[in-house]
């Protein structure tokens, strides 16, 4: 074990292994709760949380969090194929006059801290929408499973292009807050996508799959590319 780097956090202290790559390319220094992926795929821990994500730099929105306002926000086309494309780490695109980039991240904790992510990049954290996407590889067809998420604040989620969860209004991230109806993961790669809308203050999310007994789903791996998800 190499010597650790001690990083002060807003809410405490986290010990990072020096071998961990720093978080997103940082304008203000690395995001303390995020690291850059260093392997092709990762396996969720016993708690099942998906910790590897591609996160798009925040897009400015109204920040209203009602059902209708969030649905309008997430259904607005900001870039082509936003509900079907699978970007690469570092890809950039234009949203209006703003250029934004995708960043691959591994979350150190169970939740992905979008406030850390945006703050490190010197991007806004209020009245913003974050697109996130990841690939979950199932070793076999897995039926009766559920996507279970929590988010601060509102969020809408898709699995393989189908909208499965929407939670609205100002809220904090609670494990298994919004849970999809039972769904089937196909054998091989499955794309999980979300849009998280924040009005102000802290913003983060967590996500995992539950099996048909509502236990964390075992046997899956997570990657950022379809061909690496095994």
């Amino acid at each position, binding site marked *: 074990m190499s010597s650790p780097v001690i990083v002060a956090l807003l809410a405490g202290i986290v010990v990072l292994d020096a071998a961990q790559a720093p978080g997103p390319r940082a304008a203000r220094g690395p995001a303390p709760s995020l690291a850059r992926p260093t392997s092709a795929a990762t396996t969720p821990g016993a708690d099942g949380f998906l910790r590897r994500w591609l996160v798009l730099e925040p897009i400015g929105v109204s920040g209203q969090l009602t*059902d209708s306002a969030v649905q309008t926000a997430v259904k607005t086309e900001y870039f082509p194929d936003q509900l079907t494309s699978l970007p690469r780490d570092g890809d950039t695109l234009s949203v209006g006059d703003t250029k934004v980039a995708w960043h691959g991240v591994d979350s150190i904790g169970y939740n992905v801290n979008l406030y850390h992510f945006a703050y490190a990049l010197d991007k806004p954290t209020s009245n913003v929408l974050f697109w996130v996407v990841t690939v979950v590889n199932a070793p076999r067809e897995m039926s009766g499973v559920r996507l*279970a998420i929590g988010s601060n604040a509102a969020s809408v989620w898709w699995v393989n292009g189908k909208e499965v969860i929407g939670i609205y209004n100002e809220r904090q991230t609670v494990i*298994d*807050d919004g*849970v999809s109806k039972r769904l089937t993961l196909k054998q091989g790669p499955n794309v999980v996508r979300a849009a998280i809308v924040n009005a102000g203050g802290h913003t983060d999310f967590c996500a995992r799959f539950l099996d048909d007994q509502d236990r964390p789903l075992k046997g899956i791996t997570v990657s950022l590319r379809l061909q690496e998800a095994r």
Partner: protein
Amino acid sequence: MTRLLSAILLVAAPLPILLVSPVLALDGDVGMHDPSTVVVHDGKFYAYGTGNGLPISISDDGWTWRRAGTLMQALPAGRPGPEVIARGGNNTWAPDLIRSGDKYFVYYSAPGTQPKAAIGLLVGKTLDPSSADYKWEDGGPVVWSDGVEDSNAIDPGVFRDPTNGSLWLTYGSYFGYIRLVELNQKTGQRLYPDRKPINVAINGEASIMIFRDGWYYLLVTHGSCCVGANSSYNIRMGRAKKVTGPFIDNMGIDMLQGGGKLFLGSGGRYVGPGHFGLLDLGAGVQKFSCHYEADLDRGGISVLDIRPLLWRDGWPVAGENFREGTYQIESARTGTALELAVQGTPVGGLRGRGGRGGAGAAGGTPIPAQDAAQVSASWPSGPVDVRMAPYMLQAQQKWTVTPVANAGGYPGSPYFKITIAGTDRALTATEDQELVVLAAFSGRPEQLWRIDQLTDGTYRVMPKAIPNSKESLALSAVGSSTPTLAKFTPDSDRQRWLFKTP
């Protein structure tokens, strides 16, 4: 003490179907006095009561009851055996029964001129009168009182000790003691006929024992019976660490000295509850049966009822069957409330709170409660998802729960429909074992709901049926914002719900 009137009560004509609001006490032909424990056999519910030949009551669902002849009809002589009559008399009162191995033992009171009385035994293999195996054999007298001793050998209550499988019988009625003897599990007769019965209580009748968490509970009925609404019958209890007692009440008084914590007295429209019987439905759902001396909604006759059995601080508590009304339905797991998945509107509309300190000591204009008529114009007209959210007093979070007539039921209650208050939008189970609110109530089984109060006072909510499924599932909080249907797990808060008055 006399119980001569009890037989008269039972000759009343079959009752019309009643759905009494808001309190419901079973349906169909529920006239009964001194009911036995309600026993489930091959999916049907059976109860027996005082009356000529021991009348049989059967229910397919525990809600709607019908008469089915008498037990004594299945005996060759059609009446108690000669030894029973010799030790007691020719009357047939207050039976109780239990399954032991492949047999049922029915114990019944055969009083003569009280306190000369006997408790007789019937032995059979099935409770179903339509079965080819249906017959009862006279097992003779089990215990008796000679008319002089401190005992009146009627009102048997039979109990199996779950710690070792032993079988016990309590009996007695006011004259002298409530007594306890151990039974032979194979024959139903006394295991030690030469031993002196153990005195366990006085001042009561209709005794029976139950067991929970290391305690034996003796429940007896105190007060007077058989005079309709003037009956002071009430159910009392004590508990002991040994099956043989001493049974002590909540104030430390031995039931042999008249102690007894109240379990259930008169209330609502019912006078004089007596003859406790445990109906354990498994999976943490317990009910109890009793009769009321007078059901005021049925002209004051004596009727059978089945109610939830709760537990609090180590004592059983009589729950009440679910009452129709408008409620918020809150998950015990998450504290969030079931709602129609529509965008909520703040009660009173969007407004600030005024300056700090509000509108002054007198306050502002009262804000009326929000109902569906105020806010539902924007709700979709078709099917709408169901979700959970913090309760905010909003219309999409208020549910009216209403009993449905002629749709069957379950022990103690009819099925209910659950609709958004002020609308006909009905909670519905879907084929994929999820939930939706449909625009209207159709009466289909997936819109009929069984609401059982659990032993901790919370409720289990189950659809009567799920389309194209034989699974029996319960409303479940799979996440803070997400309800679903799932198998009931009694050790979890997932399927426990609170019904709160909004």
